């Protein structure tokens, strides 16, 4: 689905990414973890076609990203940025409809069919009640769901998420992650950058850890997210524990160890 082969990226003299290779299969949810400045954002920008790799290549659905036009790329790949406010008070439905832009002929406006697709995207996330609300006036969690709906309206094969939970409260983070989980189960590939190992443990099929532009390890979340790895990446002590739920499932938790008792 998404494949990176020996991707590197330099900005002037600084090498920000070196020799990054990995794959995201169809329907797989992959989380990228790493400390600030490890190159996560640069990695996403390269994948999204906003930056061009200095070396190596990125393929999506077998096609090389840098050879695709913005329109073609947007039909394959949806991007969910961190929430923010646009300068003008668009309605939620208008924002979601913008996801259809890549499918419009050069000068056309969205038509009935595009509106149906936009409405379906809202329905998938159970937020049709927000349709006529003003995007800038709804809560951060709702806004994040709207941005996911907009990306779904692109009918993409893969979703790229940049810390989609970063400005949300504790409860809303889980609401968003549950939705993300559900989408991947419906067959959409997802690559998500997150700063919280707990999120990766919560929903990822595969975890990639990075530091200083290099990939450290790729694999099953429970294997990759170890106390040693966390200590090495974030330079802080953490404890990883297992909790058994009443329904027999076991979940992993990852918490920092306080220095002062």
């Amino acid at each position: 689905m998404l494949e990176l082969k020996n991707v590197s990226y330099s900005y002037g003299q600084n090498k920000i990414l070196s020799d990054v290779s990995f794959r995201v299969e169809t329907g797989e949810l992959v989380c990228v973890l790493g400390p600030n400045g490890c190159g996560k954002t640069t990695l996403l920008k390269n994948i999204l076609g906003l930056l061009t790799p200095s070396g190596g290549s990125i393929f999506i659905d077998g096609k090389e990203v840098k050879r695709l036009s913005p329109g073609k790329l947007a039909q394959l790949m949806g991007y969910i940025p961190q929430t923010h406010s646009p300068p003008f008070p668009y309605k939620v439905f208008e924002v979601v409809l913008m996801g259809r832009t890549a499918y419009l002929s050069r000068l056309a406006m969205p038509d009935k069919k595009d509106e149906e697709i936009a409405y379906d995207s809202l329905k998938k996330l159970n937020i049709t009640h927000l349709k006529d609300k003003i995007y800038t006036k709804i809560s951060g969690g709702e806004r994040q769901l709207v941005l996911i709906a907009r990306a779904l309206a692109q009918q993409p094969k893969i979703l790229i998420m940049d810390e989609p939970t970063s400005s949300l409260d504790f409860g809303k983070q889980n609401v968003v992650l549950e939705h993300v989980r559900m989408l991947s189960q419906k067959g959409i590939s997802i690559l998500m950058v997150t700063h919280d190992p707990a999120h990766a443990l919560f929903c990822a099929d595969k975890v990639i850890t990075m530091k200083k532009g290099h990939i450290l390890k790729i694999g099953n979340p429970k294997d990759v997210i170890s106390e040693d790895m966390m200590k090495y990446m974030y330079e802080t002590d953490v404890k990883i524990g297992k909790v058994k739920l009443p329904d027999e499932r076991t979940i992993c938790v990852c918490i920092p160890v306080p220095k002062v008792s």
Partner: protein
Amino acid sequence: MHSFMKKSGLILVLVAAFLFSLSIGRYIIPIRQIGSTIFSHYFNGVNDANMETVIFNIRLPRIFAGILVGAALSTAGASFQGMFKNPLVSPDMLGASAGAGFGACLAILLSQSALVIQIMAFTFGITAVLIAYFVNVMLDYEPTISLVLGGILVSTLFSSGTGAIKYFADANDKLPAITYWLMGSLSSVTNSDILMVSVPIVIGFVSLFLVRWKLNVLAFGEEEARTLGIDTRKLRFIVIISSTLITSASVSICGMVGWIGLVIPHLARAVVGPDYRKLLPVTFIFGSTFLLLIDDMARCLGAVEIPLGILTSLMGVPFFILIFKQNVRGWK
């Protein structure tokens, strides 16, 4: 049906303003007489000569210029506000007005004809924006920021040029002419002027109208617009060229008319919301109506004409405060 009523209502507003402007002036022509004069002008040709001159050579060109310039400056302003993701941007952001003003002043200083003044204004307006665009490309920075930076540099450059020209101009005839020109007026617009500037204005306006859906997406910023499938560099180029054609052409026939491009988009946004599919047509109607009425004031309020630029700013300021105070959907 509902939206059809709204659309026709808006067009009626403009038609009413048009007839009103045609009717009032130094001497008032009743609407009925306007109708019969226009009818006989085209069909039987028997007309009172005075009436004929007032309507066809004095008022109509002025009114058409008002509609054209008002609509064009407002739509250009609305587009720029989206592109720069900033509600406080006006269409001369990239130096078009400053450049055009300089070109016109230079032509007046060199005692050129009205036609040359217009051509110089137009050319310098475009040149100014090209320089700003070049600065933007050279800086290789976040595009909206470096464009604004380029615009500020170029505006400053050409304003100081205009200042220098004023300093050297003959204080008895050239300086008053320059000052009056810079304050803006529709009084000397002729039919041929309108034909000439309508070409760039219509090209600019139609282009903006055609890309208006994409302007929505561009308002979400460079990166998001690209990931939604827009070739942002191309779109920005179209918006800049269109707005510049519009602004330079407008300034070339009526001088500096500020504030319209800033205020009117907000008024329209307060009424129909920010979606450019509706915003641009409504901005068109509001902009043209606004300038028509302002120009009516310019020619009727005093014994001498009041410069347009003074009135638009004077009316624009309280208007702006009102919009922002009342506004629910405009900005916040």
